[in-house]
């Protein structure tokens, strides 16, 4: 396909990657990338970390300058909402009525933060964190919290919530984290590591409440959230509520166009939908696995790899995304790097030193990895300040090679020696 018009709905990591991969794959037709935000492509990961902390400026969030995209013949339109896909006519309809004809369509629509059915949830200082505008609003509120000595309240002990909590603590603000589950990051981390992160945040002064039952968000006379009321009658005053309770895939456009969706746009391992002209990439997808299950990944790697696959599929050279999933999270001076998917593990081994009990794990030298096994096979590795372990783990998992739990736990054993050469 070297002519025609490929329309990309979404100008984030996956959309941008797809556009560039189409060009590097030799596509010479027109490419239009439609973003619903007012901004061109930017890096999301720093929003909850370096950018929120004020360590980097707005310009440094830019992923691709719009003029660079133009140079590659990629037309970027921002602030554009796509209202419908007409598959029979091969066109998308934009808000305002304009239609764009396509010969190939990429859905890279991302995800939307979930909300909670709580009284007071619509107060202006109850904010999610997904977009740059969300992060700007939170940053402004953090300044006000600091001025008025008001605590920050985070609902949800997942990655976004905990990263915001760490950033707010670094700024010296009082922080309470409310998590409904009995442990932090329960969907993704083993209990051992959940407990370690709980201890880490408490050592940094976070008031962490597990098994939290929230009754309502209390608003003041101006309509602003001023406290969170708990089911047990207790109350947490605050100047800002950050909602970090997960995201939902933006699959409404696809569903309305009759494409299969199941908490995400269903795609095969080459990012194809049932419509040969339509592919989907990134947070909005649910990838069909060989065993019939569906895999949703919300990560930079998933967005970039599926973006490359989406371009390849549209160029008639489909290739599967089979690389080991990886992910990271920065909290305080600790970098967690995860390789593989450790759900369903029945055994684990710890390499390195987890730093003992509560308090001591803030020590600067703490570095360790947890190796997860199922039926004796390595399925995932979570590393804290152990980048070498992480990168080795990705290679081991890519190659399908398992150390024994004893080898994994033995710091003197060179795991790199198990990685096939070449």
């Amino acid at each position, binding site marked *: 396909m070297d002519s025609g018009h490929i329309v990309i709905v979404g100008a984030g990591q996956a959309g941008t990657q797809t556009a*560039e991969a189409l060009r590097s794959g030799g596509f010479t037709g027109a490419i239009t990338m439609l973003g619903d935000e007012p901004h061109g492509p930017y*890096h999301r*990961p720093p929003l909850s970390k*370096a950018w929120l902390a004020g360590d980097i400026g707005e310009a440094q969030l830019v992923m691709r300058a719009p003029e660079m995209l133009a140079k590659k013949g990629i037309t970027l339109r921002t602030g554009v909402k796509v209202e419908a896909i007409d598959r029979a006519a091969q066109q998308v309809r934009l808000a305002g009525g304009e239609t764009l004809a396509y010969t190939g369509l990429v859905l890279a629509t991302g995800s939307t933060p979930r909300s909670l059915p709580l009284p007071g949830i619509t107060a202006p200082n109850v904010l999610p964190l997904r977009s740059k505008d969300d992060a700007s609003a939170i940053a402004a509120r953090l300044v006000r919290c600091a001025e008025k000595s008001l605590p920050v309240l985070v609902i949800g002990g997942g990655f976004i919530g905990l990263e915001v909590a760490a950033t707010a603590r670094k700024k010296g603000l009082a922080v309470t984290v409310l998590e409904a589950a009995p442990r932090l990051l329960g969907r993704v981390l083993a209990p051992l590591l959940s407990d370690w992160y709980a201890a880490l945040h408490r050592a940094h002064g976070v008031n962490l409440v597990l098994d939290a039952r929230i009754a309502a968000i209390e608003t003041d006379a101006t309509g602003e959230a001023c406290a969170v009321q708990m089911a047990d009658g207790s109350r947490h005053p605050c100047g800002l509520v950050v909602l970090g309770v997960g995201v939902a895939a933006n699959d409404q456009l696809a569903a309305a166009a009759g494409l299969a969706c199941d908490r995400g746009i269903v795609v095969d391992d080459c990012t194809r939908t049932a419509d040969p002209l339509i592919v989907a990439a990134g947070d909005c997808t649910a990838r069909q696995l060989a065993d019939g299950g569906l895999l949703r990944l919300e990560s*930079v790697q998933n967005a970039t790899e599926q973006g490359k696959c989406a371009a390849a599929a549209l160029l008639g050279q489909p290739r599967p995304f089979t690389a080991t999933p990886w992910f990271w999270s920065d909290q305080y001076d600790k970098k967690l790097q995860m390789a593989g998917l450790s759900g369903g593990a029945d055994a684990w081994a710890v390499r390195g030193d987890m730093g003992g009990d509560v308090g001591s794990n803030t020590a600067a030298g703490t570095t360790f990895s947890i190796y997860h096994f199922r039926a004796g096979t390595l399925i995932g590795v979570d590393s804290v300040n152990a980048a070498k372990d992480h990168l080795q783990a990705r290679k081991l998992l890519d190659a399908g090679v398992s150390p024994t739990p004893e080898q994994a736990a033995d710091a003197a054993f060179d795991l790199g020696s198990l990685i096939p050469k070449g």
Partner: protein
Amino acid sequence: MPTITFIEANGQSTSIDVQEGWSLMQAATANGVEGILGECGGSCACATCHCYVDDLMAKVLAAPSQGELDMLDNVADERRPNSRLACQIKASAAMDGATVRLPATQE
């Protein structure tokens, strides 16, 4: 603003006036240098902004952190004595005129 030249594995050369304080990864990716991916947005988490610095740059740079060294141990292309991660290099006036070469692959 120091001017820094990026040379890709295919010989393509791009000179960029980099704002002081910006990382070389940010400058390169925002300006369309394709040999640097910087997928993690500069968190020292992905090792896809591997580069080879020249002597001028090497003289100005502080030694890499343990985290950067660990990532460099596992870069996709050949690791050399002058290998660094572009996301960990903050531009400064002293780097004016420096050249950074990029490996053929980042992943």
